[in-house]
């Protein structure tokens, strides 16, 4: 049941096209909504186990011979993600019912992709088996590709879809490499068993390589610097998709992966530096460029990049706790808690903000912030929700973002007390960069909400007459906004239910059960550095926001061609399209002769290479039959006939040469005691020659210009190579018998089993009767082909014939 639950969405997806076609009156989304709601209820029932630190495991065999199975491992971390996936999923489906028009859109496609994604994502967070984890991981990339490209007739959608696919799948492949290395080191595919073996894995040579590869997968998926460039382009997807995949769930898969593997990799210096450093850089970079954007969803995309960086950097700091003695009693305990807490908060406020961006787009017809303004009085509910979301994102009370932001600052401040891995020198940079990034976060949060809703309404520039969204569309963002506010007042309940069980999983080196996580969230904890930092953020942030029109130009100083997007375009267009195409065209010339040359050369090198590497060549003069005088004669005739075909000036001569070879072969059969073969060969050869002559009568003379074939060195080398290969093969085959011939069986049983005397014939019609049957079939097909070709006339000619 537990494993099956993962697959429920994709099974439900099979029914959708029928529902969409048959029941047009009801929006298909209502049927879809049942799936995440039911799963949400199901996963909620596991919470009472996970808060005690217990877990539920179920396994379903898939490929037992390769030790590959589907598994569902529900612990604190998996349950948190599963509830996010199904919870936000329900709200997003509800929202999409009003966002997507049932008469205009291809709803069945949309919801099939969405449900496919849901299964994939549940699989990622619940798999205990690294290979199936990878499978689901790539499935999320594929469904994300399909959803971004949902409006596939738009160029930008296709471009964005391809870009996200290229980057995330490339990262996924790296991750697969890391998984393979990890399972080789640990001797198991199970993540739980790998965690147990973490100390022995850490001393392995490939440890750091596996670590970097897995991080590449996580960083590409979670849009970390410098791979974030796919996320802004993914905003071409319908807004419900952006809210779901590209802010709340899929982009957090990388976070999940880092959290899940922290117990294994935390003891590595490389891990701490990469996760904390890249996370912090991404946080800063994303917040800096969010205010540059003019598209509402563009702002949110950069903000998502930045916030993912924040969570990532906290996870890096959480790994530091491994190196501190009795960390559970020190300031280092906060980072892990803050990471998970902010992950929940981010899902709530960013989800609501995305939905508001979608509402603004839906009701005004544009997302360009330069055309928007003054919507406050027209869309009061949307404005309120946007205000709550933005203030939470900026880190203001009384919203949940304030709590996790304070705790984030605590975590960053703890870095400067960390004495290992050169952090005593560089650690002080962490709180500084975090503070600067928070200021910019404040600026873009205000930029988003106030540029859209206050100021002067520019009705003339809007494609539609703006008005408040329908109630149904507002339900989901309002629910999320209520959560944003209520989490502020009940943070410790959320902490007990979701955060602590997850933290205990991430930091098993600190806590053995969720009860030991002795962290309580307070909105007020005195005039500490965190408080003064927040005051500074608000003061400087407000100032910068008010002066924004003056300094926004600064962004233009950075030239376009220097951006990472240009690098991607260069890779895709110049390197892949042009260079690779040229490289392919270099050898894929369309000439059959070239291709045959490659094939023969490959065969020759493989066979001769194997002969030498395996030392298989042998030459023995034992068991050879004597050579008689007529043998020599026949061989001479055969060689002369062959040479004739090679050097013939006219086609008749060539045919005669071929015929001579054929009849000689027949005579060879006579000598070698094969009367049946000789008879068949004689008959077939006669028919063949007749056929050749008949066909050649219609065929052109051998070209007059090229009367004799010009000698070509390349061809000759290949030909001689094949000839030499065959000779060597024949000599080796004759000179050593590794296994007993099966012919003896036929000789002994031919009379008793088949009741015949002519062994060759009995083999053909009895022992291997089906072979003969198929042989006849092949001949029949060839005959039909010949008949069809003779009857076939290209349509062009037929028409002209009809006209005559």
């Amino acid at each position, binding site marked *: 049941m537990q494993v099956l639950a993962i697959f429920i969405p994709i099974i439900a997806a099979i029914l959708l096209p029928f529902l969409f076609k048959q029941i047009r009156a009801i929006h298909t989304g209502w049927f879809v909504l049942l799936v995440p709601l039911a799963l949400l209820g199901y996963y909620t029932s596991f919470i009472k186990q996970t808060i005690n630190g217990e877990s539920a495991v179920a396994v379903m065999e898939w490929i037992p011979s390769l030790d590959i199975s589907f598994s569902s491992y529900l612990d604190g971390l998996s349950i948190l993600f599963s509830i996010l996936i199904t919870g936000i999923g329900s709200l997003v489906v509800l929202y999409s019912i009003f966002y997507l028009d049932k008469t205009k859109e291809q709803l069945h496609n949309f919801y099939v992709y969405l449900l496919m994604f849901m299964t994939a994502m549940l699989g990622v967070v619940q798999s205990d088996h690294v290979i199936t984890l990878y499978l689901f991981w790539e499935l999320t990339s594929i469904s994300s590709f399909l959803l971004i490209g949902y409006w596939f007739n738009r160029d930008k959608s296709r471009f964005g879809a391809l870009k996200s696919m290229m980057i995330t799948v490339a990262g996924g492949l790296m991750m697969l490499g890391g998984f393979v290395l990890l399972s080789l080191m640990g001797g198991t595919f199970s993540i739980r068993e790998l965690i147990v073996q973490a100390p022995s894995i850490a001393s392995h040579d490939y440890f750091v390589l596996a670590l970097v590869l897995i991080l590449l997968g996580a960083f590409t998926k979670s849009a970390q610097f410098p791979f974030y460039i796919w996320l802004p382009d993914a905003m071409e997807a319908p807004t419900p998709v952006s809210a779901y995949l590209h802010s709340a769930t899929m982009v957090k898969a990388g976070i999940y992966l880092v959290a899940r593997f922290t117990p294994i990799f935390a003891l590595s210096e490389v891990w701490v530096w990469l996760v904390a450093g890249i996370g912090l850089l991404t946080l800063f970079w994303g917040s800096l460029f969010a205010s540059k954007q003019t598209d509402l969803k563009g702002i949110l995309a950069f903000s998502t990049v930045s916030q993912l960086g924040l969570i990532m950097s906290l996870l890096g700091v959480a790994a530091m706790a491994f190196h501190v003695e009795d960390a559970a009693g020190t300031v280092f305990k906060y980072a892990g808690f803050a990471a998970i807490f902010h992950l929940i908060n981010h899902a709530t406020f960013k989800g609501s903000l995305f939905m508001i961006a979608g509402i603004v787009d839906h009701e005004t017809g544009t997302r360009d912030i330069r055309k928007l303004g003054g919507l406050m009085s027209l869309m009061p509910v949307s404005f309120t929700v946007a205000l709550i979301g933005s203030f939470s994102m900026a880190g203001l009370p009384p919203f949940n973002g304030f709590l996790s932001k304070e705790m984030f600052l605590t975590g960053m401040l703890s870095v400067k007390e960390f004495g290992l891995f050169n952090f005593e020198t560089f650690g002080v940079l962490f709180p500084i960069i975090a503070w600067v990034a928070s200021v910019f976060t404040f600026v873009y949060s205000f930029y988003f909400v106030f540029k859209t809703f206050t100021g002067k309404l520019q009705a003339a520039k809007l494609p539609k007459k703006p008005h408040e969204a329908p109630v149904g569309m507002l339900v989901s963002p309002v629910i999320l906004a209520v959560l944003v506010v209520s989490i502020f007042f009940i943070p410790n309940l959320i902490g007990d239910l979701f955060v602590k069980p997850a933290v205990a999983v991430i930091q098993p080196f600190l806590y053995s059960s969720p009860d030991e996580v002795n962290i309580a969230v307070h909105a007020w904890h005195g005039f500490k550095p965190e408080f003064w930092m927040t005051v500074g953020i608000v003061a400087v942030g407000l100032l910068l926001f008010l002066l924004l029109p003056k300094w926004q130009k600064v962004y233009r100083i950075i030239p376009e061609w220097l951006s990472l997007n240009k690098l991607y375009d260069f890779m895709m267009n110049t390197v892949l399209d042009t260079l690779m195409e040229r490289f392919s065209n270099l050898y894929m010339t369309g*000439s*059959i*002769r070239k291709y045959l040359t490659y094939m023969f050369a490959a065969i020759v090198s493989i066979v001769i290479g194997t002969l030498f590497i395996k030392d298989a060549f042998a*030459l023995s003069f034992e*068991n*050879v*039959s004597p050579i008689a005088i007529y043998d020599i004669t026949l061989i001479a005739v*055969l*060689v002369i006939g*062959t040479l004739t*075909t*090679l050097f013939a000036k006219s086609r008749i001569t*060539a*045919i005669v040469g*071929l015929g001579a070879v*054929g009849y000689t*072969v027949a005579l*060879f*059969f006579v000598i*070698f*005691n*094969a*009367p*049946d*073969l000789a008879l*068949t060969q004689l008959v*077939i050869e006669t028919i*063949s020659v007749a*056929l*050749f002559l008949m*066909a050649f009568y219609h*065929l*052109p003379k*051998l*070209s007059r210009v090229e009367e004799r*074939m010009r000698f070509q060195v390349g061809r000759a080398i290949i*030909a001689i190579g*094949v*000839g030499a*290969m*065959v000779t060597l093969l*024949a000599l080796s085959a*004759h000179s050593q018998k590794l296994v007993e*011939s099966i*012919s003896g069986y036929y*000789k002994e049983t031919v*009379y008793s089993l088949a009741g015949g005397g002519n062994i*060759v014939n009995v*083999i*053909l019609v009895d022992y*291997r009767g089906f*072979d*003969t049957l198929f*042989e006849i079939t092949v*001949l029949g097909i*060839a*005959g039909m082909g*010949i008949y069809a*070709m*003779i009857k076939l006339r290209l349509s062009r000619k037929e028409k002209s014939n009809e006209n005559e």
Partner: protein
Amino acid sequence: MEIVMAFVCGFLFMAAIYLILSRSLLRIIIGTGLLSHGAHLLILTMGGLGGESPPVLGEGVTDYADPLPQALILTAIVISFGVTAFFLVLAYRAYQELGTDDTTKMKGSDEDD
């Protein structure tokens, strides 16, 4: 004899490949013909050319030629005939439709797609 036949087979294969790599359809077909002859002799040689009498049960005969390669070759002869006939008609029709028997001229260019 087997040693000599190994070289004969190699020679046949060499000539066949040389012809198959030419431009003219006719030579390619002749090449495939030679190739099948070479293959038949190769199978026979690899099985051993010994044996005093044909593989037909008879009074007092114990040393038969190996029947298995012969059975394989018998099938192969017929199939190669089918292939040759098919090729010939294909070449004939291609020449009628395209006006050439030069494979390099038959090659489709990108503009034809």
